[in-house]
């Protein structure tokens, strides 16, 4: 499959490494009604990396690696819309200046934050601090697949496309999921967001890893995310699981279109860590 690679612009966007934020009352509530303190979103996570299990962490939607945002809300919207999974990132300031990273996903929390997630090698993560400025070499917005104009492309960088889908007619995903897995995230603008997978809603989610490529049937994200029979949406798992009802691993949207336009190969190894060689 061929994309319109020579039509795509490469543009510069900046995001700063964030620091976690909290309200005065630190307690969220689990599905069973147990109060807990949310940890894992914002800042730098040294523990969890792309390729690790999405479940099993004492955390709420843990963001692997560095979590970045632009402090200007309108510029952050552009960062969220233009940054694509696979894009290269360069550290511009601080002790890690000059180091290279890779965009691995996006994460939106309702009425709270919108982050772009960046993978770095462990030694770079150790040197990064909140406030460090990163340059995202954004490319992918406007992508089309030749001969498949009915498929909408969203946060999909050409780097990931080349590694994942350029050769072969079948698209590798780790699993194809039922539509009721989608929790928080219905009705959001497809290109700038993530949607949560409710891990209790489909046994096929067992063993899910951050970075897994997944497909959801009867779900459309051509423009805005929502139920639509006979459509399929493909995304990449960007964060860990959540103890909050209706939430779960945040999944960044890559492709969406009529079910007939897709031919999947279920491959447990279809994960960003391998495809993008994230050490």
């Amino acid at each position, binding site marked *: 499959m061929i994309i319109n690679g020579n039509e795509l612009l490469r543009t510069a966007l900046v995001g700063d490494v964030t620091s976690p934020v909290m309200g005065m009352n630190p307690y969220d*509530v*689990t*599905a*069973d*009604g147990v109060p807990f303190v949310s940890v894992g979103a914002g800042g730098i996570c040294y523990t969890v990396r792309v390729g690790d299990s999405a479940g099993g962490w004492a955390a709420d939607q843990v963001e692997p690696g560095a979590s970045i945002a632009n402090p200007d809300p309108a510029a952050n919207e552009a960062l969220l819309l233009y940054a694509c999974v696979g894009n290269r990132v360069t550290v511009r300031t601080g002790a890690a200046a000059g180091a290279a990273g890779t965009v691995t996903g996006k994460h939106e929390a*309702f009425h709270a934050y919108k982050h772009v997630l960046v993978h770095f090698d462990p030694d770079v993560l150790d040197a990064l601090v909140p406030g460090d400025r990163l340059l995202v070499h954004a490319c992918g917005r406007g992508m089309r697949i030749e001969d498949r104009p009915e498929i909408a492309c969203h946060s999909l960088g050409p780097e990931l496309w080349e590694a994942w889908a350029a050769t072969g007619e079948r698209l590798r995903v780790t699993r194809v999921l*039922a*539509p*009721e*897995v*989608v*929790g*928080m*995230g*219905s*009705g*959001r603008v497809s290109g700038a967001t993530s949607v*949560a997978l*409710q891990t*209790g*809603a489909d046994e096929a989610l067992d063993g899910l890893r951050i970075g897994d490529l997944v497909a959801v049937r*009867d779900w*459309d994200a*051509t*423009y*805005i*995310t*929502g*139920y*639509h*029979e006979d459509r399929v949406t493909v995304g990449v798992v960007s964060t860990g699981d959540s103890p*909050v*009802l*209706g*939430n779960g691993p945040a999944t960044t949207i890559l492709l969406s279109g009529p079910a007939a336009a897709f031919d999947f190969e279920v491959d447990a190894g279809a994960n960003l860590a391998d495809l993008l060689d994230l050490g």
Partner: protein
Amino acid sequence: MSAPRLNTDRLVEVGVQAEVAHPSHSGTYSVDSYGRPIILPGMAGVVANARVGDLVFPWAADHLEPGVSAGNPQRDRYQALQFLACVGNVVRVLSGPAAGAEGRVTGKHAFVLVDFPQEALDMLAPGDTLLVRAVGQGLRFLDFEDVAARSCSPALVEGMGVEVSADGRLQVDVTAEVPAFMMGAGLGMSSEWANCDVMFTRREVVERLGFGDVRLGDVVAMHDQDHRYGRGYRAGMLAFGVVAHGGYGGVPGHGMGVATIFSGPRERFEIVRSPDANLRNHLELAA
């Protein structure tokens, strides 16, 4: 058969100030489920010609909020209004030519939705102040510890005619039952905040699933939904709510809004299908 025992005598009733909200707009088009750019009314202000008891779908509207949409321009006061107001609460108009008119809370969305008599609806304007006599948060079904009431006033439970059946279940009349895969925006949010959309944004889906006759204010059951501490999918759980907002032509992932009133394990309930399970009857709303 008997009425369920409630802790009504332990609930406090609080006067909460609100005002009729003015519609606002981003100035850009949204996109509907057919991929068409749309600008449609429905949210905020006063909708005088679509009321609780009317059909949900035959309107050229998006997120149609029937009657009055009550908000508060101060963020912290707005949040208090959102969390404290319960379906069935009495609301009084404090200012403007409709002052003194009395209405009832009929649902929640981005605003608290209130039905008033038609005469008042024709006079009310954005900015008119309202007083909500909020009572209901903290309500418990004393013999059903694993059933959680959310934004449900004691008057609503009574008006709905909820009964405890001979085999010890809460018997609830509903007009429709919603399958879990149709639940959209609103999942993951607090049980008390706004509502949860059932993704009816295309006519063919409404017809295929047989929801064409559903009315604003209908009580519906939502299968495999746990709405006790937030809203989400859970096999074997059941949630009940009232249809708060409607309209076709909406944005994907949104649709018909259902405000949660109570939720618990499936086996605690007996669902009875009844075409009369609507707030217009349950709250005896004035014409």
